[in-house]
């Protein structure tokens, strides 16, 4: 069980983790499709690069974002003693 005085630092830590997970991800998903046409001049595995990044690349980025978030947030939970008892 988390100690009372740990709650504030825990939540501050969690908020920074949230921003670190979401800000780069949202920036990429909004900006990348807008430049896809210019990237399409290059090819990768036969795919036009802009299309490849907008589909395969974003899937990869999304999976990595969630995986790293789960891992980091779990570490934060344990650091502050906020984790569930197993």
């Amino acid at each position, binding site marked *: *069980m*988390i100690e009372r005085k740990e*709650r504030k630092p*825990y*939540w501050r830590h*969690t*908020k920074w983790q*949230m921003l670190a*997970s*979401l800000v780069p*991800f*949202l920036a990429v*998903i*909004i900006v990348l*499709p*807008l430049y*896809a*046409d210019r990237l*399409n001049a290059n*090819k*990768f*595995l*036969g*795919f*036009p690069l*802009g*299309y*490849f990044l*907008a*589909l*395969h690349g*974003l*899937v*990869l980025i*999304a*999976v990595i*974002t*969630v*995986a790293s*978030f*789960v891992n980091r*947030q*779990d570490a934060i*939970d344990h650091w502050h*003693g*906020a*984790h*569930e*008892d*197993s």
Partner: protein
Amino acid sequence: MTFSHRAGYVNPRLGTYFGIFISAFAAIGLLSLIFEGLGAPRSALQLAMLLGPLVLYVAIGLAAFTREPLDYFASGRRVPAFYTGLVISQTAMGATGLVGITGALFLIGFDALCLVIGGLAGFVLMAVLLAPFFRKFGAFTLPTYLGRRFDSVALRLTAGGLLAVPMLLMLAAELQMGAYAASWLFDQSRGASLLLLVLAILLTLGAGGMRSLSYSSAAQCIASLLALLVPVSIVAVVLTNLPLPQLTSGTVLRLVGRGEAAQGLPIILPPALAFDMPGEGLSAIGKRYSDAFGSVGPVAFVIVMMSTLAGVASAPWLLPRVAATPGVYEARKSLGWATLLFGIVMMTAASVAIFMRDYLMDIVTVPGQVRFPDWLEVLKDLGVLSIVNDANGRPTLSGFSVERDAVLFSLPIAAELPAAALYLTAGGIIAAALATAGSLTNALGNVLAEDVVFGLSWLPEQPAQRLLVSRFTLGVAAAVGGAIAYIAPTDPLNLMFWALSLTAAASFPVLVLSIWWKRLNAFGALAGMATGFGLTVLTIIAGEAGWTGVDSALAGAIGLPAAFVAAMSVTIATPAPGRHVLELVRDIRVPGGEILYDREMRFLRRQKNQRS
């Protein structure tokens, strides 16, 4: 017996059970292949592919019968992360998403990615912003969570009423798409197909509610995944020698791109707010596959992406799933699985689109006399494809018109696979439709029972009465959804856009703020939900009537930010929430400790006992 709420509660035989299901499903597929080779009548094979899996789903649902409210509403909180993620990935947009996005990718290529990226990002936002906290709170429905979090019965009832609308729209879309997929297997009227689907859902869910739903829809999602991946992988082996369509379709796309340039397919620069998603019926191939922004303008692309993202992240039919995971850690992890599996499904859908374009391209790029293959005649006879020749009497790529929803079903025909492959695809789409429609029926039925019928009292009724009412409202939800699907013959993809925009505007802002801004009070939440919902409905109506000149799918652009602004400004203008509520928010934010819904109910029961 005291026990911790986490590990050790997952059924260790779950893998075996689903292994048996996969074997049985594969056996149905292989047997229909064998009997097709032996010359069995087609109608028998179709019926086997339609009813065989249905029997399995219903059997799983009935086997999960329960009398316990915790099992009925949250599956005993023992569904592992992988199965939760699998089901979330397939039921976020469901069969409508799968069939509609495949068709849209085929017809407008890159521009349909706004839905794919929106769905992916929705899972990421759900994992980071909402799912762990909703699991910690442990409420069975979204309105219960909101009502308890703000300690307001008015908010609970309003949320129940408002969120029922997008759920009904999505339910109608799913049932329509399921009936469409059934029409490839089942020579009966649309009404009969809808009735069959509704009955299957009721039989599956009636016995165990969420418990039946968790395991039967996991089976349905495995079936739909297999039915999508297997035929496409076979086509990939035929075309590219490797069973990895997601990656090897690149070499095919290169040929398609060259052909499109040779055919002189135009490069279009649409207005920023253009949103020309192909609708029902035949649509022409008007645009090069990998060019960005031909049918959808860049601003519209971002808007649809954002409203899909917010709609998926806060979907009232997905969040209750998260409450059924064994713990907060598993709730986060399940969204990781959902992201991965959704990505794989969407990359496969894109390769279906590329392969179909390639098959058509092969016809039109042949030098000399054009000869139409047999499968093209089959598709023409089915009425899902038409050809207009150009001035020289030759067919061109832009002369082909294809029905959007038929693209996924056309691939096995175009690849000249045995008919069993087509039946397998149709069976998979029916499975996806059943899983999603089941999720919606269950969520809607629980909202009606818990938040509308018993909405005025916080203390839950006696288990027997509670489950009886929930089973009754489950039937009501399914019947109303079926009736709407029958009488409103609107494009299912459009219904899905509306449902996602409405959810995005009505629930996403309030849900996110309810966790990340503890000052938010009941007035702000009410104002946010009502503003978001009302403005989105008005924008949809205005878009459909053509008053604004902007497509109704973009309705989230106004409702979503307006709901944020309304919730925050009304909150600041009204008094801060009380101590109890603030303490509750602080507890929601910490994963460890008791499930808050259980704790609240215990407090209430103790208060009531002291009074009496």
